[in-house]
């Protein structure tokens, strides 16, 4: 029944399909993660993507890998306000933590949502002049000449010919396996541990429309991503030096809007906000409590902007912080499958 000739058959290596290990809370509460049909997960694809993610071969002068700015020990971000590229030039955006990307259902990546899938996102840093500043043709060529890569691409994608599309597919496969779902708060929701009084009160503040009111944008016990992956102006500025989403859509109503980050793993991801302006969680909380700045596009959920913010008491601030820290996922940080 099979029409392939013997020769072709010998060439064919079928990669082993990989089943994503989905945290039980995600499986219970959320719709399925997004895995494109033209890039299914395979053992070989993920392993190759991981190797590429940590390999400086992707940068123009061999000094940077993706992990330079996306360090597994820091929830796949870095601790600098802005990250400098291979030429020492700094961008104007804070590096983003990478986890649970397959659950970004709208598939809009970057602070301003300009990349429309994980695959498409991965094209960008390699050639970005203030990041890895390389040329895809040269990178593909270097990989092609490499002693190991051609066979790894063959095993993952059935071809010896390496190009940027396959590189980004492999990296995207690896990125989909970067999952954080086992913080203390996850364990609490699974009934495996209890919260301190402070953490419980902090969670109540987070969920209370009359106090923190954070849940409308940053998830909840029923949305364990702890982000809506959507774009808002949360009152950082009155005028914008960085238009954010507005620069992408061209709609002035989107000026100053940035993607809500997940509030998982904050202890590893400082500094905060798209421009890394806050170096501590206290500063972030003070921002929402007293520091909101009015502007035409501020989100209506920043409801108390005319009073500076939600005006939390010192005790409520401390408890809110305690709750936020209960979303730190040490298992994720130490997951050996995700280290170099």
């Amino acid at each position, binding site marked *: 029944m099979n029409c392939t000739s013997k020769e072709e058959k010998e060439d064919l290596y079928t990669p082993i399909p990989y089943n994503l290990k989905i945290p039980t809370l995600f499986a219970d509460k959320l719709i399925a993660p997004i895995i494109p049909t033209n890039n299914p997960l395979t053992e070989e694809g993920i392993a190759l993507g991981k190797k590429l993610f940590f390999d400086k071969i992707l940068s123009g002068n061999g000094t940077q890998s993706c992990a330079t700015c996306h360090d597994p020990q820091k929830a796949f971000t870095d601790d600098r306000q802005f990250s400098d590229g291979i030429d020492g030039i700094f961008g104007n955006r804070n590096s983003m933590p990478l986890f649970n990307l397959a659950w970004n259902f709208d598939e809009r990546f970057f602070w301003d949502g300009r990349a429309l899938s994980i695959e498409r996102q991965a094209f960008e840093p390699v050639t970005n002049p203030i990041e890895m500043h390389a040329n895809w043709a040269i990178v593909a060529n270097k990989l092609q000449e490499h002693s190991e890569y051609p066979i790894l691409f063959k095993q993952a994608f059935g071809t010896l010919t390496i190009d940027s599309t396959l590189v980004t597919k492999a990296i995207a496969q690896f990125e989909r396996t970067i999952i954080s779902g086992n913080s203390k708060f996850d364990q609490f929701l699974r009934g495996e541990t209890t919260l301190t009084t402070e953490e419980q009160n902090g969670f109540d503040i987070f969920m209370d*429309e009359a106090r923190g009111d954070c849940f409308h944008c940053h998830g909840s016990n029923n*949305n364990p991503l702890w982000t*809506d992956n959507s774009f808002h102006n949360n009152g950082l500025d009155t005028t914008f030096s960085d238009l954010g989403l507005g620069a992408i859509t061209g709609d002035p*109503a989107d000026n100053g809007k940035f993607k809500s980050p997940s509030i998982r793993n904050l202890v590893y991801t400082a500094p905060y906000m798209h421009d890394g302006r806050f170096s501590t969680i206290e500063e972030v909380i003070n921002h929402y409590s007293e520091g909101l700045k009015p502007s035409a596009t501020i989100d*209506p*959920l920043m409801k108390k902007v005319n009073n500076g913010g939600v005006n939390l008491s010192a005790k409520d601030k401390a408890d809110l912080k305690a709750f936020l820290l209960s979303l730190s996922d040490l298992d994720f940080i130490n997951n050996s499958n995700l280290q170099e």
Partner: protein
Amino acid sequence: MKKIISFLVLIIIFSTCKNETDCCVNLSPITVNLKFTHNWNGVALTAADFNSFKFTTENGETISIERLRYLISNISIGNTIKDYNLVNIGENTGSEITFEEVNQESNLLQFTFGFADEDNIDGVYQDLNSASFNVPSMLGGGYHFMQFDGKYKDTNNQDANFNYHAIRAVDRSDPDNLVFEDTSFKIDLGTIDFTNNATIEVKINIAEWFKNPNTWDLNELNTVLMPNFEAQKLMSANGKSVFSLGEITQ
């Protein structure tokens, strides 16, 4: 062997014939498209009209609409039922629902705004959780019926925010003993005679949320309305005149 095969073939032919005769006794079922269109007192309103102070409420406040999502459930055309549907005007999603296999006869069109108590079960609808449409458990859990956010010009002509969020009304006077009132409501759009595949327009007049029977004063009721028992009952009362039957094409 051959005999058995021909026997099988016969059975297959026979049963297909039987099915055909069966099916042609009734009128064939039709497909119905429900289309939700939005207006402000009759003037069409789409995402393109968001983010500008172009609407005036009955009470006289000028407003800018920035986010408007609402949920309807138990949507039924005769015996054909869809569990629920989330409409997001800003993102232009959910405003068309297709019903297959609707009986070609007179059918009642009705649905519930929000979730009635028995369907308003905390955390069970994965797509709604993924869309962050939940209600905190301190308010009894379940889901928002509507999230309507925007800005209004206050009495000093300054921008102020409103979060007109409709949920099941909850009285939290005693936080350990919440008292609920089911503020979802049924909309009955009447009986429609179906003679063919059809598209039915359901018209949503957003202005009615601020109008009838309660003239809504945004200077009084603007934010933190979820835990406001009385505000929820006012919203529920006003919602009943929001929905009406529009054009039917078949």
